[in-house]
C-alpha cells in the first residue's frame, strides 16, 4: 500500500474519463431522453386532441342524425298526406267517371227503352190493324184508316 505516482496517474485518468463522458456520452443520451419526452408528450397531446375531435364528431353526427330523422319524418308525413290527397282525388275522379258511365248507360238504356217502346208501338199498331181487320172481316183500306191507327198508336 504505497502511495506513489499511481495517485497522479489515477487523477489524470479520472479527469480524462470525466471529460470524455461530459463531451461524448452525456449530451447525446440526455438529448435523446429530452427529445423522446417531448415526442411522447406531443403524441399524448395529439391523442387527446383526436379523442376530443372524435367526441365532437360523434356529437355532430348525433345532431345530424336527429335533423335527418326529423326531415325524414316530415317527408313521410308529407308523402302520406299527398298520398291521401291522391287517393281522394282518385276517388273523386272515379266517382265522377262512374257517374259519367252510369249516366251514359242510363241514356243508352233510355234510348233502348224508347226504341223498344217505338217498336212495340209499331207492333201494337200492326197488331191492332190485323186484329181490327180480322174483327171487321173485311178489307179495310189501310191507307184510309192509317190516320186513325196512328192516333191510336200514339195513345199507347
Amino acid at each position, binding site marked *: 500500500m504505497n502511495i506513489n505516482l*499511481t495517485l497522479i496517474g489515477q487523477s489524470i485518468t479520472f479527469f480524462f474519463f470525466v471529460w470524455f*463522458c461530459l463531451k461524448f*456520452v*452525456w449530451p447525446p443520451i440526455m438529448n*435523446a431522453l429530452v427529445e423522446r419526452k417531448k415526442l411522447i408528450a406531443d403524441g399524448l397531446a395529439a391523442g387527446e386532441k383526436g379523442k376530443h375531435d372524435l367526441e365532437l364528431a360523434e356529437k355532430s353526427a348525433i345532431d345530424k342524425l336527429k335533423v335527418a330523422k326529423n326531415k325524414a319524418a316530415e317527408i313521410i308525413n308529407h308523402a302520406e298526406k299527398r298520398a291521401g290527397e291522391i287517393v281522394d282525388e282518385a276517388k273523386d275522379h272515379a266517382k265522377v267517371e262512374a257517374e259519367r258511365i252510369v249516366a251514359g248507360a242510363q241514356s243508352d238504356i233510355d234510348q233502348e227503352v224508347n226504341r223498344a217502346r217505338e217498336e212495340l208501338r209499331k207492333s201494337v199498331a200492326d197488331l191492332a190493324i190485323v186484329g181490327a181487320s180480322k174483327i171487321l172481316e173485311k178489307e179495310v183500306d189501310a191507307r184510309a184508316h192509317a190516320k186513325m191507327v196512328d192516333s191510336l198508336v200514339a195513345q199507347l
Partner: protein
Amino acid sequence: MTTETTGEALTATGYIKHHLTNWTYGQFPDGSLGFANTAAEAKSMGFMAIHVDTMLWSITLGVLFLWLFWLAASKATIEVPGRLQNFVEWIVEFIDSSVRGSFTSKNDLVAPLALTIFIWVFLMNFMDLIPVDWLPELAIWIGSTFFGADPHHIYFRVVPSTDPNATFGMAIAVFFLVLYYSIKIKGIGGFVGELTLQPFSSKNKVLQGVFIPINFILEFVSLIAKPISLALRLFGNMYAGEMIFILIAIMFSTGWVFGIFGGFLQLGWAIFHILIITLQAFIFMTLTIVYLEMAHQKH
C-alpha cells in the same frame, strides 16, 4: 489456493501478502528503472513508482464503460430505444435524478462527473467479485510462460479500488473541483471568508481576530476531511471486502470440509458484497455531488 506460486513463503501469511502486493514499476533506489520483484523492493521505490495492475484495470474498466456508453450515445435515437440504449438510459436517468435531487445550481459538469464516478467505481469494485485467484493466476501463467518471469515475483491485484492510490486519486480530483468551483463561484475572498469568518464571528475587532485562527482550524479540518473521508471510505470497504475473500480462499487449502464451508462463505459474502460495491459507488457519487453543491452555495 496457490501457495506454491506465492512469493514470500508457502504460508497463509505469504499468500495474503502476495495478494496485497501491487505489480509495481518504478525507479529503484540506485536509479535504475524496472519492475519490483518483492513488496520490499516496491516500497523502496518510494513515490517514483507506478502500480501497473491498478492503472491497467482502472483504465480498462473506464474504457469499457465509456466505450459502451459512447456506443449507446452515438446511436441514441428518440424513437424506440434498443436494449443497450435502454440500459444506458436507465442509468443516465437514475444519475440525473440523483443529481437533480441534491444539486440545485447550474453546472453541466456535475451529472457526467457523477455518472463517471458511479460506473467507474462500481466496475472497479466489481472486480472484487471475481474469485481472488483467477486473474492473478492467469497473470502468473502468462508472465512465466511468455515473458519468462519468475512466477513468485508476479504480483497482480485486480481490484483498483483496494489500492489507496486509486481512491485518493479520485478523491483528490474531486477535491480540486470543489476548490475550483468554490473559488469560481464565491471568489477568493468569499472562499477565504468561508474558511475564517465562521462558525464564530463577532462585531468586536479584537475578538474577531481571535476567532479567525480558530475558525480556520475548524473549517480547514472539515474541508480536508472531505477528500480523505471520500477516499478512505471506499478504500476501507473494498480492502476489507477483498481481505475477507482472501481469507475465505485460504480455507480452500485446508481440506474438504473447510473447503466446502469456505465455498458457501464465499458465495454468501459475494452476494452481500454486491450490495456493498454498489452502495460504495453510490456513496462516492452522492458525496461528490453534495460537496460540489456546497462549493456552489454562497453564504
